[in-house]
């Protein structure tokens, strides 16, 4: 027995001891499934799921752009679908393997970014607005109210160039995804004017400070805002009058996947009304699944923060992916604001 066969034998023994069930690799945003979502799927389909989480689209893209990431199903935000598709990273969806697709809410059956749902199944959605302490009078209704000198040092904006510049653009009456240098420069002036009034640029971590009362007004995602409101009922949320962005995360199957069928089974499983309703309830995020929405407890189903009424919804905008030149200008402006 030479050394190589010896090692092969060892490897073989190790292999025998391991689980032989098929394995699906799912990479998702953190806190984006219910506690029983994955175990139930494993039990019902007799498979194993390797599940891991990420915190940003960039983190996800950095991995999957190698084309050899080892993941089967991932959940990019809708405006990343087109670049992922153009780089050949996505497997086209097989609708014959997704019989639960009609459960989607009418608003997501033919979304603007993927008319025929060829690449991604809309999963959950949310918007960006203002969360505020009810002690603030008058209550904010517009982005412009976040330039209020009376609240100096008690307000925060998101530490995210897209949302933060987007709010400045909306205040000026421009599109959230403007690529016009002049508009962007004017938005920059607004941001620099606002900076001395702000306590900080914070993302989800502002939640605790809203609850504790350090921060009285914050630009925040509706899902995170709802978590803060659940913890402190003296908080409220508004979708600003000038307009605001919506985001939607989609479940996709990567082209590199060798288990396209199983991956579709998983997507189809997530589309089941009860599964999807449990996810929406556990994560307090708005589901794209209309059949699931109907199953939710009334307090969640009719919550205007998660599911804004049609007149508010109409003011929302789905931000487009930015071309490289605009992206670069925005990054420069962002750095200038931070360095100012």
């Amino acid at each position: 027995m030479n050394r190589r066969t010896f090692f092969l034998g060892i490897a073989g023994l190790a292999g025998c001891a391991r689980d032989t069930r098929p394995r699906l690799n799912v990479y998702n945003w953190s806190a984006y499934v219910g506690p029983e979502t994955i175990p139930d799927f494993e039990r019902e389909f007799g498979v194993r799921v390797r599940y891991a989480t990420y915190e940003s689209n960039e983190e996800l893209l950095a991995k999957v752009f190698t084309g050899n990431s080892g993941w089967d199903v991932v959940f990019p935000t809708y405006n990343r679908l087109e670049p992922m598709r153009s780089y050949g990273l996505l497997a086209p969806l097989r609708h014959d393997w997704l019989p639960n697709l009609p459960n989607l809410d009418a608003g997501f059956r033919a979304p603007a970014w993927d008319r025929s749902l060829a690449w991604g199944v809309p999963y959950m959605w949310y918007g960006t607005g203002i969360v505020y302490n009810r002690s603030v009078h008058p209550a904010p209704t517009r982005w412009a109210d976040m330039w209020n000198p009376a609240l100096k040092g008690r307000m925060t904006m998101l530490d995210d160039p897209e949302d933060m510049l987007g709010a400045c653009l909306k205040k000026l009456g421009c599109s959230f995804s403007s690529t016009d240098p002049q508009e962007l420069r004017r938005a920059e002036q607004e941001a620099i004017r606002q900076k001395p009034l702000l306590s900080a640029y914070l993302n989800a971590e502002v939640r605790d400070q809203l609850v504790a009362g350090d921060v009285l007004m914050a630009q925040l995602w509706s899902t995170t805002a709802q978590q803060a409101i659940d913890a402190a009922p003296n908080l409220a949320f508004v979708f600003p009058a000038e307009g605001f962005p919506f985001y939607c995360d989609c479940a996709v199957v990567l082209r590199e996947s060798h288990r396209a069928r199983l991956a579709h089974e998983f997507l189809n499983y997530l589309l089941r009304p009860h599964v999807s309703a449990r996810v929406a309830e556990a994560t307090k995020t708005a589901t794209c699944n209309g059949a699931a929405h109907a199953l939710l407890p009334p307090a969640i189903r009719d919550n205007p923060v998660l599911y804004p009424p049609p007149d508010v919804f109409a003011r929302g905008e789905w931000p487009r992916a930015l071309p490289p030149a605009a992206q670069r200008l925005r990054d420069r402006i962002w750095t200038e604001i931070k360095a100012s």
Partner: protein
Amino acid sequence: MRLRSWFLFPAWIWLAALFAAPFAIVMAYSFLTRGVYGGIEAPWTAESYQRLADPLYFAIVVRSFAIALAATAICLVLAFPAALFIARAPRHKNLYLQLVMLPFWTSFLVRTYAWIFLLRDTGLINTALQAIGLIHHPLPLLYNDGAVLLGLVYAYLPFMVLPIFATLERLDPSLAEAAADLGARPLSTLFRVIIPLSKPGIVAGCVLVFIPCLGAYLTPDLLGGGRTVMIGNLVQNQFTTARDWPFGSAISIVLMLLVVAGLWAFLRRESEPLV
């Protein structure tokens, strides 16, 4: 080759795999073109370096150096007496050293978050000061340069204490006694005998504190509340939201060169009198 030289082999492998190879990758990335959605693409170009010659980035570099220098200076002022105390302590020397190392038992991230809970408007410090009536409105302790400086000093103080302690401990106590015998007062002994002799420790401590402070990104991010940028934040931003890996790599390379050049000049100047 003699057997002895083979002992260095693991260290060479380590250096090659974990330093030289990543450095070469960063170097190569910095001369490539930005991929539209992150990553890198052909062709080769020096454009990222040209972009760095921009007063905006220069201002951020100057700022980072100023903050890192200030943090190093404060660390030195705090660490020297502490190191002297430990080195001269007749008993419990190990206990004191353990206390210096104690913060390392907890994750850096958790410790930095803990500062947020101490410093914020409804945090422990402001609540306590208001309770005893010293102040009526919360002090703005968090999300400014002071908080960043505090966080950096807190994080890197042990790196200053330990090397200074090591040199002071080896210092022959009879030298200080001799100075006293020759009529030097304690302060004079300190500044003319002890500090010059502990210079190697001071230099090592300054280097160990200054370099990580210069590249810090977590502390300015968490305690500065994203209101300020240091070089570290600039680099991080290029690899995340800005999706400009070549530019981020170029900033890293330039930062590295600046540090190496600065260190070289500093050590050359500082080590001459000792040789």
